[in-house]
């Protein structure tokens, strides 16, 4: 076995380190070491919605074990978690809670849409209580296809997220706090507070159309 320490890809290529100091000393950029720490300690939120959550549990269990990537610390509190794995079908009734949980997470925060339902509605897309993809409300970093994605696919998706983190800089991550998403309201249907004007316009037009149709029917009868 070689005694050479594992290269974590931390060293900046421009600097020559004497051979006897390799493994002890690293010359690198702040971004790189910072991201190295973040990518290897992604704490997902312990939060499952549907079938995909079962595969998420299996991923955390002994056979697949995403602890190997530093992700085993599932936090039940959004305040302590870095990544929200939206594991399952998002329904309109559940959506306000999910948005609230997202708002409560500390920056920098990431969202992984796990499975067909979270990515775009999946088999339940046409359902009246189903949100056809969480990306209609939250910014999504990684989409994982599958119904449900196998544990391997979930791990691959999280590795893609690690790659994304590698490319970020501190400036970008801490430049601005991320935007608070207004919490949708359960009215006659789910309502995004940012769209109230649009809703009002739509229902006004709809009422006019219905009135016109009724008047037409009356005229035809007469």
């Amino acid at each position: 076995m070689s005694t050479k320490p594992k290269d974590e890809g931390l060293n900046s290529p421009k600097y020559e380190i004497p051979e006897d100091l390799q493994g002890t000393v690293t010359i690198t950029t702040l971004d790189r070491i910072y991201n190295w720490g973040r990518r290897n300690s992604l704490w997902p939120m312990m939060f499952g919605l549907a079938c995909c959550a079962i595969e998420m549990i299996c991923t955390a269990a002994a056979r697949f074990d995403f602890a190997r990537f530093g992700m085993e610390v599932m936090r039940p509190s959004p305040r302590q978690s870095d990544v929200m794995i939206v594991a399952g079908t998002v329904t309109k009734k559940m959506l306000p809670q999910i948005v609230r949980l997202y708002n409560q997470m500390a920056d920098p925060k990431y969202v992984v849409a796990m499975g067909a339902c979270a990515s775009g509605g999946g088999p339940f897309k046409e359902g009246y209580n189903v949100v056809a993809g969480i990306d209609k409300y939250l910014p999504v970093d990684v989409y994982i296809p599958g119904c449900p994605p196998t544990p391997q696919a979930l791990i691959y998706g999280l590795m893609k997220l690690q790659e994304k983190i590698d490319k970020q800089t501190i400036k970008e991550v801490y430049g601005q706090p991320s935007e608070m998403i207004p919490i949708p309201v359960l009215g006659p249907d789910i309502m995004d507070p940012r769209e109230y004007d649009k809703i009002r316009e739509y229902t006004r037009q709809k009422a006019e159309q219905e009135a016109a149709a009724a008047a037409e029917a009356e005229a035809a009868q007469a």
Partner: protein
Amino acid sequence: MSEQTVMIQNEEEVLLSRFPEVVKKDERKGYEGYIVEAKALKDFATTLRDELGYDYLSSVTGVDYLPEGKMEVVYHAYKTTGGPALVFKVQVPRENPVVPSLVPIYPGADFQEREAWDLLGIKFEGHPNLKRILMWEGFHGHPLRKDWREPFYEAEHKPYKSRFPNGEFFRAEDRNPFGKNVDYPAGFDPETWTPDNSNALIYEGLGRVEKAGDDLPTEQIVVNLGPQHPSTHGVFRMVVTLDGETIVDLEPVMGYLHRNHEKIGERNTWLMNMPFTDRLDYLAPMSNNFGYALAVEKLLGVKPPERAEYIRVIMAELTRIQNHIFAIGMFLNDMGAYFTPSLYAIEERELILDIFEAVAGSRMMVNYFRFGGVARDIPEDVMAKIRDLAFERLPRRIDELDRYLTNSEIVRIRGEGVGVLTPEQAIAYSAAGPVLRASGVPYDVRRADPYSIYDRFDFDVAVRYHGDVYDRYLIRMDEVRQSIRIIQQALDQIPEGPIVAGKQQYQHRVPAGEAYGRVEGPKGELGFYVVSTGKTNPWRYHVRAPSFINLTALAEMCKGHKVADAVIILGSIDIVLGETDR
């Protein structure tokens, strides 16, 4: 004439002579049972329960017969001593459907009547708590009515003309002005609208107990557990009133995973529903396939070949094993043994999932059953694996779990005497499966009303008598052992031969009529009620979900216990939200 037919004839005489004019036999082709007039329903149900012994009301659901302008409520009642169902129906006009509530006679009808009100708009007079259950208060319309259309509505039935045979595609989002599946009633104004506060309704409905003769003034508080809570097995919410740490009252709130299974199911073709059933109880996909296949086969009148029957039984029992050991692992999680026992449980589950993957192509969503058989045969090497599991590995591993857990002092202290459900209560609340049997009622559909080839196997109906959390844990252990026995016998007897009856087709024309297929799923009696009008799509597709109906008894079990016990009582019922909310 056999004894049973004589009995059924007697029942018919009793019912028809006791209620002349108001009770008639259902004469429609393909239908069975009785049609009862709404005004006589309560007397009819009382007679059924008290005189004829139909003490278990299994399923209540509604059907919207739009062309006839009628709403029909369908009831399925059983005797807990076994035997076939007695079906009775009430027909009411569609404009103002009012049916007397059966909750005073069968408390198990509670949630099911609320669901029929929520989705079909049938009012149940005399229901103590008639609120929406799956959707939220204030939602526009009753979605399962045939003239109610979802925002992404495209056509009445699949396959949609736009996709087939033309092969066009488009995004449903592009056709909606909001780019989402939302729709609002005409003239609605979000600014002047005041919310119907569902939460206030729930909080008001909760009981509060005045303590007499207590000098120390205390306040009872309302606590929400869930919907995002690590121990609620998904997105389930319990609203509890607490006096100190003691639960005074509890109300389960669900619908956070209501995926409109039944509405989508009525647009799908018959076979298209098969993969959707996988996603009901996603821990027991094979059992769900089984129930749906049985219901449709009843209408089609096909019988699977011998080998297929054996494959079905092997798969259904493997499902039960993996579900129960997972349930035990998660139950220990709820008790506070964080993840260690689950790791042992999941290890075995993975091996069973490997078998599912090998025969069906997917670990969880198997889509394996077909009408009249199964999709693929079990390859020889997989058969050897199942053999190894059933004869060697699983019996040893179950004994191992048993050794670690059953006599553990913590499991016993926390489980014994907690969340007791008496046999009378269990029957009245229509509890099913392990919950019912742990209360001392030896009712197992595999024995009480055998389906498939379960009458050929030698197994015991597991039953325990204390009705507490600990017994519900023990009964799962017992059932796993019985399932292993069944698999061992099936493996020894399985013949060679075809695995599906007739030629497989994508479009089935199912003869008009109704059918109720039920199986003993891992969670309890899983029933599928389907109505066909002779077309390629079901007119009504309803799932009698054991996880949903077992929750009726939750409040009763939790009252008087500590709030930490509510978590393990819920764990001991073993619900899966995909099935609870559908």
